[in-house]
């Protein structure tokens, strides 16, 4: 039975994270240092040490997830703890800093950390929602099956077009060759359909196969009854191609969204580790 990473072992790590945050907040409220709360008080150093160790441990997830032979907990458990303790880190570090921020290396590390956590929360949301949307959109097929269906429609379109004059064959062949699925990340995330088609010797934009269908509708109104039936058949095939293209483009978008946030989360985590080292080094350099 599938169990969400958030619900892992009855939300065990949610309670760990809440306990850790609650304990930190309680200590912060009870602690009465002889100076404004900052990273240099007894509690400040304590929370800072805990926070730094947590950051290193959270980053270690990137190593642990590749260690397929590892038996230190399950990977699902690690990810569950990674998510909950990652959010708890925000509380601990803000208390560590005594909510002091400025234009300096220390706040730079904080900014990196907040961005890493924010991207992680976004990624968790994506992981919770998108796989389901992905399979709903595919309707039980795999992406390559969808693409094969697309190819089948293209093949059938060509065959139908063979019964019609040359300009129809040109329309179908160029439309097949110039069908474009998001080739860049940006196009995928935006579901841009950059398909083109050649009509009357001109190559024109053909998003959703509309240009081709418009042209066919126009031809159909002028054609004799026999040809009109064939043209209508071709139109029906293009309509179903449009539907399939939408499905594939949505599939590409969801897939891109599922993967792209890690291109933010992982590099920022690396930046955070460097900023953390610089932060600690600076603190003791100018003790």
């Amino acid at each position, binding site marked *: 039975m599938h169990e969400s990473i958030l619900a892992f072992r009855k939300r065990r790590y949610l309670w760990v994270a809440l306990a850790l945050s609650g304990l930190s907040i309680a200590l912060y409220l009870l602690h009465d240092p002889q100076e404004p709360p900052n990273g240099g008080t007894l509690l400040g150093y304590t929370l800072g040490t805990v926070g730094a160790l947590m950051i290193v441990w959270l980053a270690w997830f990137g190593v642990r997830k590749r260690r397929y032979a590892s038996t230190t907990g399950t990977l699902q458990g690690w990810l569950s703890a990674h998510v909950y303790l990652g959010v708890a880190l925000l509380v601990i570090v803000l208390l560590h800093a005594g909510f002091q921020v400025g234009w300096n290396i220390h706040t*730079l590390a904080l900014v990196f950390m907040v961005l890493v956590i924010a991207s992680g929360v976004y990624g968790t949301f994506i992981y919770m929602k998108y796989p389901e949307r992905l399979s709903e959109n595919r309707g039980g097929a795999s992406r390559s099956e969808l693409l094969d269906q697309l190819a*089948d429609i*293209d093949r059938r379109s060509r065959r139908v077009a063979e019964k019609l004059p040359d300009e129809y064959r040109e329309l179908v062949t160029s439309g097949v060759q110039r069908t474009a699925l998001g080739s860049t990340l940006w196009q995928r995330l935006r579901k841009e359909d950059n398909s083109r088609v050649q009509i009357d010797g001109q190559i024109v934009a053909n998003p959703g196969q509309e240009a081709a269908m418009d042209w066919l509708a126009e031809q159909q109104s002028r054609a004799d009854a026999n040809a009109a039936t*064939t043209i209508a058949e071709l139109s029906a095939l293009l309509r179903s191609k449009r539907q*399939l293209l939408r499905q594939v483009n949505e599939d590409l978008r969801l897939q891109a969204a599922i993967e792209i946030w890690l*291109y933010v989360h992982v590099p920022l985590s690396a*930046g955070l580790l460097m900023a953390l080292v610089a932060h600690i*080094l600076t603190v003791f*350099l100018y*003790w």
Partner: protein
Amino acid sequence: MTYLIRFITRNAAGGVEQHDRLVDSPIVTIGRATDQVLHLKDRRARLQHAQLERKDGAYHITSSALAGVTVNGKSQRDARLNVGDVIEVGANIIRVIDTPANVDFAISFELSDDATDEHLASEWSTPAIGIAGWSKRKLSWTLVAAVLLFGFLLPWLVMQNFLTAGPVHSAHSSVGDECDACHINLFQRVPDSGCVECHTVARHTMQQEHVVLGDVRCATCHLEHNEPAELINQHQALCADCHADLPAGVDLQRASDFLDDHPDFKVSLKRPVELEDGGLDWQVEHVDLAGARDAERSNLKFDHKVHLAADGIMTPDGNRVVECNECHVPEPGGARMLPVSMDEHCASCHTLAFDPDDPSRTVPHGDAEAVMQALVEYYSARLLGDDPDAVDRRVRRPGQRLTRADRDRVAAEARGQALAVAEDLFERRACINCHEVTKTGGEFPWHVQAVQLTEHFFPHTNFSHAAHDTEVTSCDSCHNATASEAATDLLIPGIDACRDCHGSGERRRNSAGQLPSTCVMCHGFHFETKDEYP
């Protein structure tokens, strides 16, 4: 209803094999899902692609797929079937064949040759995700290098204030961005040597006054780079840690909290001390405020009650109400009050005129012998001058000089008049109103006791009048002057008056709304002056 499905396969040699299957069911489902009656192993077919069924007395094929199925070369979603019709689903070919006996409807099923052609879309089947050729690893290392370079190395070389933990206090603005002015040795805590570059040890005599502190560094208490800036440790524990439980032999009362554990105030007062030769010396004494309510000894006579009468007092400008701040003016900065001066604050009413015929002429204030001298000169001039009212009117030839006898006579007469006026001034009309005047005998028989004002009643506190000038306070909130009839009244408020507003050393206002008040709100930790302190 019984359907017959005839499976046809062609072997490599071109031979045809076939086998029949009978299906007893109202409909024949066709699709890629394994629960379909006619199970198609073709990725172009949908899970439930189409179905055969009997409708309106004929057999139909219907399809839920948008593109439908191809029947006799035409895409259709619902087609009535006749023997000989050809149905295509992906690469599969279904033909309607003659119906044998005992069967309602029959089809044959054959896999087409071109099941694998035209995978036009295969190039899209494994799309690469990424940002223009940047892998996560490459992005990560780039960011690490950028943070190291721009976050640490460059600031270290050219912009060290990027490495600061917080703003430098404005008191240290002269130090500016020079981190090494205080952070003398890297990886070592800030030593005192940086502090004493600017701050003289003479004012910060911590080592002598609080020997218990031992080798505590300045920066243990004086912390920079915080927000809110708090260079001076305001914490109650700074003092209370020791003063709540003083070691034996320390002659001080315990104090750990202003509201709950603080002795009554002591006040520094200038008081006369008799010397062995009978003279008086004025010395500052540190006495209990409660026992010194009428102990002010300033040698002045003053009645606050009369001056501050609510129905006014007669002045040269008529009857009017006098305000406190007409005489008590804050010093620049507003901490204490400037001294009250006769010339500025008293003389407009208390004129030192002495001759009713010449009311604008006054004697000087502050020097008794100068008063006498002024009077003698005044009356000498009147006796000798060209004034027609001059007293000595005996005719004298122009250029003729006074004889010595004449001069002695005039001088004696002037001095006699001056003494008479002076007696009036000193003993009855002017000086005696405010000053202690004693008659000593001799050539000049009066002695005015010098005014001995206490300059600072609490020399050891940071009290500031300006800080107490609020909407809810007035002078008489603390100083009960309107009821004071004698200058011996000490109008300094006691600790209870302070506690109306000031509370404990907690960080927040308490339930009574009193201000959090820690020791260093009033007291300095380091003794900065020893004047007026016993």
